[in-house]
């Protein structure tokens, strides 16, 4: 479940991970599992089985989670290719209302644009990536609450 509880548990771990200068850290506890890996760029990737968050020290991802109402599992849009994520203009922001199908971004792979599409309506709960960031397969891009 991706909610405040998770965000609240992940954030101190992420900080500890960053401050300790570790390369990799996995924490498992009951139904909770989170894994941090350091990329050479210095950013930190965290993933949980149900949802994942990408964060660097000045990344809005974790802070954004706290804005999400508790108890609702947002839908997480992930990348199904490896490439560079590019936001559509105007770029969506946390708390933004989405009405109707919409391409939020595309992931560019070898010059091909793979759209990241949200169908239906909802509210943006989190933006996990920054425009122009490299993303891998399965990497969470946006969380949306219906």
């Amino acid at each position: 479940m991706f909610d405040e509880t998770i965000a609240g548990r992940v954030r101190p771990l992420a900080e500890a991970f960053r401050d300790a200068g570790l390369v990799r850290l996995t924490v498992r506890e009951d139904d909770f599992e989170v894994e941090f890996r350091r990329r050479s760029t210095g950013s930190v990737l965290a993933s949980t089985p149900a949802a994942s968050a990408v964060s660097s020290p000045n990344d809005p991802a974790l802070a954004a989670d706290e804005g999400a109402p508790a108890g609702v599992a947002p839908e997480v849009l992930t990348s199904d290719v490896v490439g560079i994520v590019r936001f559509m203009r105007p770029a969506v922001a946390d708390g933004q209302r989405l009405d109707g199908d919409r391409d939020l971004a595309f992931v560019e792979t070898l010059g091909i644009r793979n759209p990241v599409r949200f169908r239906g309506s909802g509210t943006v709960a989190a933006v996990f990536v920054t425009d122009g960031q490299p993303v891998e397969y399965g990497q969470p891009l946006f969380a949306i609450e219906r």
Partner: protein
Amino acid sequence: MFKKVLIANRGEIALRINRACHELGVQTVAIFSEADRQSQHVRFADEAYCVGPGPVVRSYLNIPNILSAALISGADAIHPGYGFLAENARFAEIARDHGLVFIGPTPSVIASMGDKATARRLMAEAGVPTTPGSDIVASAEDARLTADRLGYPVLLKATAGGGGKGMRAVYEPAELETAFATAQAEAEASFKDGRMYVEKLIIQPRHIEVQVLGDEHGNVVHLGERDCSIQKPSHQKLIEEAPAPVLPESVRIRLHETAIAACRAVNYTNAGTLEFLVSGEQVYFMEMNTRIQVEHPVTEMVYGVDLVKEQVRIAAGEPLGVTQGELSPIGHAIEVRVNAEDPDHNFAPAAGTLGRVEFPGGPGVRVDTHVYGGASIPPYYDSMIAKIVAHGATREAAIVRMERALSETRIEGVKTTVDFCRDVLRDPAFRAAGVGVEWLKTDFLPAYEATRAAARATHAAAPV
């Protein structure tokens, strides 16, 4: 030299390449599937990208995602390892088109060696002996004339064949007509291509292959031969050694000279292996593998050359680090493939989570593996989980050392080939050396299975 190399593989070979790169001061980028997230090859790399879910078509064969990972990570070269995309000429070409160096031979050499008919023709033109055979035979009568010319026994083969389909061994002229009809019908049914050719059947051949290295400056060397005759019934290699034991010196020299001539004929660059069938004094070219091979460590152990580092250096445009005169084998090396397979059930692959894992060590022992206690063996990939290599002053010393190494090996949680290989090492025929590629299937396995059955019967009958 490259700054950063993307390793387009998994498992032990990804780790092997990672080590070579790090020793060369080159940074590494791993790729992995969702099933391999916890794998050692991911942890040991400088950075890593998930390229897809477990099934290989969507991950380790996913060319766009792999190339994209190479480009966004800023890699300047790709090492394909073995299997997966290692002999995919199109991949090598696309990589090159994106400004990446493919660590291997040129796409056109990969393509010509990958096509059996082209490879045979090129080799024959270069004076390399290939199995005597024919072009397409139009009819059973045509096949009979060819068989008469070649001498029995012969092998009828479908040009489109694979996996033994459309293939028949014919020992007597009287068998030919029926064999031709059934093989052709089978080829027609399996491949929608009933074109047949005839090849001389080589009886009890040994599989002996020659390791070569060629650079972009016209230098080519061989690093001797490996005997890979101990093969499972599926013809997958199980135990390999270098040098080949009990091989007439004249044959050894001919193999080496033939390999060099073949490489020169196609301007071969990077590491490669020429596979031969050897029967008595006769040597026949089978195929050329345009990649690093699983069993390369036995060559490294006796020659003291790091083949993977040489691959990277060659691809970076550097001249070979060694000359032929500097290369001579020291002692003997044997490799045992530890597969997560059940030798008692036709080598059925096993997946699951490993329990306790202990690998051997000590003098003259090398272990190339990506597994550890608690590691999971996903069902999607090759069943090989480790290679244990033993080096000794003599073949006997290497075998004794390998027996010792295998006795130290503990792998719990899945069935493995460890104990089976120990039994093979103790077999008098293996000890005497020089067995052919069918020996394990036709001689060793029946005796092994009888012993196992007897042991089970005794065990079952024993009072509790």
